[in-house]
């Protein structure tokens, strides 16, 4: 069986490219690029300038139509993509650093320290994502800071759990034990062995956390508790679109499509990463 496992599990990086993964990467990359370029050079026009008739359908002049105040939707959408991505990515970065630090220490130390961390994490985990986000927005006041904090608090529990579990597994491997016996200092062990051991988990969970971040930002902004006008975000634009959907459906569909596309691409990338990092054999029962 050993032979069989090796043969199946040995995979050359990049030996075959998954077309779905490539498509997802292109979609996500394009969205980032567009948002970035629009932030530097307002090629599509200003997101705040009231330039046209109200609720006009898509045309050459206004590629995605105009909103209820007569602002062109395209620059607002581009700004919204940027805001949503920056807010989510910032939050996920904070989550990643926090959870790695907490998870590694708790997982490596084990015992009461891990138990305590897990109980605290359980408390955070007991709040449904959007409800926790609402609570955070209620305390901090609606806005970007609240949104980022909410995403961090929503994504930290799961990531701490996963990293602590992974770190605990790595901590009992032979090379860590031998490092400890030969007198390598604790910070060095944590940094060199444990951190590299949780890298895969971090990548997969971080990707999933990013899509959760976009969802939370969207939900919170949709409820009016997230990013505030006149700035735009994907969630905010969907909410605006929903109000005028009968008169101007493009206001709903354009941001909704972008939101779904970005979450979908991130999920696909996360799944592919997971499959690459945790490959498995498939069997039939025949």
């Amino acid at each position, binding site marked *: *069986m*050993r*032979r*069989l496992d*090796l*043969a*199946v599990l*040995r*995979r*050359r990086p990049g*030996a*075959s490219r998954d077309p779905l993964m490539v498509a997802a990467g292109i979609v996500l990359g394009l969205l980032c690029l567009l948002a970035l370029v629009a932030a530097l050079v307002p090629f599509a026009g200003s997101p705040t300038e009231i330039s046209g008739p109200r609720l006009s359908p898509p045309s050459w002049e206004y590629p995605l139509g105009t909103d209820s105040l007569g602002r062109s939707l395209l620059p607002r959408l581009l700004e919204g993509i940027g805001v949503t991505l920056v807010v989510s990515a910032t939050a996920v970065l904070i989550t990643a650093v926090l959870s790695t630090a907490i998870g590694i220490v708790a997982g490596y130390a084990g015992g009461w320290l891990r138990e305590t961390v897990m109980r605290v994490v359980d408390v955070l985990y007991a709040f449904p994502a959007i409800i926790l986000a609402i609570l955070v927005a209620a305390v901090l006041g609606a806005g970007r800071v609240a949104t980022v904090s909410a995403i961090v608090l929503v994504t930290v529990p799961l990531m701490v759990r996963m990293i602590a579990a992974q770190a605990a597994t790595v901590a009992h491997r032979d090379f860590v034990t031998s490092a400890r016996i030969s007198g390598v200092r604790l910070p060095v062990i944590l940094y060199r062995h444990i951190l590299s051991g949780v890298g895969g988990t971090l990548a997969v969970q971080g990707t999933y956390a990013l899509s959760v971040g976009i969802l939370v930002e969207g939900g919170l902004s949709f409820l009016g508790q997230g990013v505030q006008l006149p700035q735009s975000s994907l969630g905010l634009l969907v909410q605006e679109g929903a109000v005028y959907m009968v008169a101007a459906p493009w206001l709903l569909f354009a941001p909704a499509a972008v939101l779904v596309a970005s979450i979908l691409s991130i999920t696909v990338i996360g799944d592919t990463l997971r499959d690459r990092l945790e490959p498995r*054999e*498939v*069997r*039939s029962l*025949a």
Partner: protein
Amino acid sequence: MTAGTAGTAGEKDGVIVSVTGLAAAYRVRGEDSPALAGVDLRVDAGERLGIVGESGSGKTTLALALGGMLPRSCHLSAGRIESCGTTVRGAGGETADAAQLRALRRERIAFIAQDPAASLDPTMRIGRQFSLAMRAQGTPMTDAAIDEALAAVRIERPDEVRRLYPHQISGGMAQRVAIAMAVARRPQLLIADEPTAALDAEVRTEVLGLIVRLAEEHRITLLWVSHDIPAVRRWCTRAVVMNEGRIVEEGPVGTVLVEPEHAYTRQLVNALRAEGTEGDGR
């Protein structure tokens, strides 16, 4: 269609397994990596054959192929396999259908897996999965009969063990349960692939002795895949040495594993002598 017909001439001659020119390869990410490159093998009724070789020599692939148990990623490209009267693969490439292979595995071949504890269903009590397996094979057993079968593999207080879950018993005991389940339906051929790899040395000898004793008692032909040469020398009658998908040497254990002719076998045996170990088989 000659595939899958039971009761061929082979069996009358006392030949349980006959493999000729078998070639197999694993398909990994669109590339073939060969596992067997032209293997001929004959196993006679009543013998105890040890297949030895390093990891990756193809011995497990060969053992799995006999029962039509290869994973999907492995495909046979040439050769003929006949096991216990079933043509698993004919020379022309025709293969037995799923029902025929199931019947073969149900009635005539039994496998003992590497990791004993994992080969038992973790959500089921021992007694229940024993009787379920027997029922699925068309030979239902009463609890008393199961107790007897467990006692035969030297499990004390079988009526208590029957009520336990697999995680509640030791690896050695789990392997004995697996052996009892495999032998309970009196197969013609018992294929054991490193059956003691997950056990510690003391239990290992006991379990091996048990397998051999049961095989003799019930006239079951034993095919044992192992890299433990001293153990094969002790428990088997004949040995086959595999390297890189080929059989490099075969013969009685006293010849092959004591005065090997082939360079590769010599290397294996000498490496063992140099280590000064006599392995765990003793």
